[in-house]
């Protein structure tokens, strides 16, 4: 779950209330607060700049249009993420309308969960690379995941939604979130080992 302090919750509730009552400045403030995260989410899911731009715009336009229906007992960000995810998935479907990419859970061949790389990493692997290099490494690793795994990972571990919120946003069961998340994390770990393993350590097959 996203870590939010009580003061931030109060502040945000007041802001959302103002936006709901027609204060356009308050809504603009919400946009500035979340535009970067929504844009990142859109890019991660669609893997396409043009689509991500559309998703960003559509998500905020829809949020604005439907603000009346938003209930204050929920978190505004979670609600906004759900809208953005729906938009992003629609884009992804349109682009991948052929059979080349399925959003359904890939058939479990048993291979994805196999751990092959057993190499110790540097203590702070992120410090071995520049910010831009690191961003490139992390983004391309996420990009290589199948959409069903990628989406769950992005919501749970990048946007820090809870398991329940992720299940609800994607309309999948909690066990499905858990199993996809495990596979996504293990696959990413595997891919990143190449970059982050401690120099001089051997890599050997395992399990």
């Amino acid at each position: 779950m996203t870590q939010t302090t009580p003061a931030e919750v109060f502040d945000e509730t007041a802001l959302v209330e103002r936006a709901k009552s027609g204060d356009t400045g308050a809504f603009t403030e919400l946009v500035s607060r979340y535009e970067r995260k929504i844009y990142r989410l859109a890019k991660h899911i669609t893997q396409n700049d043009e689509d991500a731009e559309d998703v960003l715009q559509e998500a905020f336009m829809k949020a604005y249009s439907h603000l009346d229906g938003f209930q204050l007992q929920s978190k505004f960000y979670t609600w906004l993420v759900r809208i953005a995810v729906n938009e992003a998935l629609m884009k992804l479907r349109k682009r991948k309308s052929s059979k080349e990419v399925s959003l359904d859970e890939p058939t479990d061949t048993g291979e994805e969960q196999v751990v092959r790389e057993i190499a110790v990493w540097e203590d702070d692997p992120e410090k071995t690379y520049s910010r831009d290099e690191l961003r490139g490494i992390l983004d391309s690793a996420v990009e290589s995941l199948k959409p069903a795994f990628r989406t769950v990972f992005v919501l749970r571990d990048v946007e820090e939604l809870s398991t329940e919120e992720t299940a609800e946003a994607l309309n999948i069961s909690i066990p499905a979130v858990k199993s996809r998340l495990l596979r996504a994390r293990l696959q990413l770990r595997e891919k990143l080992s190449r970059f982050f393993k401690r120099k001089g350590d051997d890599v050997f097959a395992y399990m």
Partner: protein
Amino acid sequence: MTSLLTCKEFLADLNDYLDECCGTEVRLKLEKHVTECPNCWVVCDTTKKTLKVYKGMEPQEVPEPLKSRLMAALEQKMAADKGKKQAPKQKSGDSSQESGGCGQRVPPAGHSPLK
């Protein structure tokens, strides 16, 4: 008395262990396994670091031209809505046509994001 976990069983529970959402008994079993099995220790440690690097990555700024387009589109919509509200009240079909389904009853009808 405590039954030992296999590496496969450890991996199956790895997420709950990392997310600290397993019961005390299970956590103790996992802890015992991870301290005794060097390979699982590495898997656990590197998965932990995987999460740490992703969580530590700040989102990039939205490019300026895109930001401007978004704000312009919103301002236009806000102005149009204001105009509507100022106009004499008449029944609007707007609320009954929320086909986007962006209320809290998500997922929207007719849309199943990921099976």
